[in-house]
């Protein structure tokens, strides 16, 4: 695909996308450090994985 001489380079496009990406809120940052919340998510994620492993066999 030819580069548009008037457009950003692919590297600039990626840099722009990163620069405009959303950042986590202060609440999200606090929840990352919340051990009770992370314990719940840990078990929830592991349950999902076990369900996937079971579904993978027949």
């Amino acid at each position, binding site marked *: 695909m*030819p580069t548009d001489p008037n457009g950003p380079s692919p590297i600039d496009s990626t840099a722009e996308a990163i620069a405009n990406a959303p950042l986590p809120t202060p609440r999200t940052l606090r929840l*990352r450090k919340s051990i009770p919340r992370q314990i719940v998510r840990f078990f929830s994620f592991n349950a999902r994985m076990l369900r996937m*492993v079971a*579904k993978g*066999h027949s």
Partner: protein
Amino acid sequence: MARVIVMGAGISGHTAALYLKRALGRDHEVIVVSPAANYNWIPSNIWVGVGRMDEKQVRFPLRPVYERLGIEFHQALGVAIRPFGDKLDPTGAIDITYTDPARTREAARLRYDYLINATGPKLNFAATPGLGPDANSLSVCTVDHAQATAKAFAEVIKEMKSGAHKRLVVGVGHGGCTCEGAAFEYTFNVEHELRQAGVRDMAELTYLTNEYELGDFGVGGLAFDQQGFVSNSKLWTESLFRERGVAAIVGAHVRAVDPGIIHYELLDGTTGELPFDFAMLLPPFRGVEMKAYDAEGNDISEQVFAPSGFMNVDADYAPKPYEEWSPEDWPKTYQSVMAKNVFAIGIAFAPPHPISRPRTSSTGTVISPAPPRTGMPSGVMGRTVAESIARRIKEGTGAALGTASMGAACIASAGAGMRNGSAASMTMYPIEPASPNQGGISRQYRERSASPATGRS
């Protein structure tokens, strides 16, 4: 008494061997052939590569484990498969060369009733001039590579502590690589360790990938429900890159690596150079070097293996355009096309095609991820094929073969530490999209989810 040989003792092969022995007990023989004396939990090599774990924590000797279980272990390299035996005996056989120090270079031919090829990848550093730890870049693919990388990483941190600014590059070293998830994981572990060392502001960190966009991970990206809206892995990944101050070059094929300089080409045909002080670039994969012969000794490698060196199995290998790719193209039983008592699992089987949309640059260079080969489906395949073989041994060759479908759960560490570390978890089921042509995100999002980085060790 039947004899089953498992070639390879990685995630897939070791799993297969254990399930075989459990199912067959002492009535039948299970043999493992592996050139390495140790089992290596490869996903943890990432942490060896930043100096957080040492080699004793990520590998253990195989022989004592197999001896306890009654599995015969040969520390040897497989060099050929003879699915139809030889002139003396039509029983299938493999040719091996011992790497066991007590029998180095000794050759042998082992007969089997069933064979599982779980030989994993050949790390094809040779595909890119200058790539690899024997040349100009680092790797975390093996424990030895990762230890050398950790040493180089410690050295560059030391230099930054003395006031030097450094450029670090992490990514994939060829347009056809897979394992972008591992490169992503190593990138953010490096970033985390730089912060822990207090030198983050002295480092410029760049992720160099063949993915068309961030969040592709070799599967065309993921869609997931985020607070009632369909979000996508591109946005999620870009957010992490912004949060952690990591730059990215996407759609790149590394053409060569000179000391301190990466030469790359992008999808639009432009080329560039990326200077570095520290570069960890994963290699592309091939199948291991192994030949196949018929009973007369004629070379039948081209029928048994794909050009990539991986073994052809019950997949649909007919060339077709991206828009016609289907989950039905993928194997179910992992049985070889040439012999019903031979199976290939884990990384050793030949995929029918990639999962991400294939792309070439304007100069014709393929820059597009090969399909990911991750641990969960490898383990599932190992168990499924082991149980299939055990069933055939006990019930006869007409017994049904089990099928394994490819789901994946990937847990990417983004920095070690109970309170200040983080990780991301992603599950996809199935990995292959129901319909490839649904724009940038080709997944029904219910069973595919990515959890944003969380604080956990």
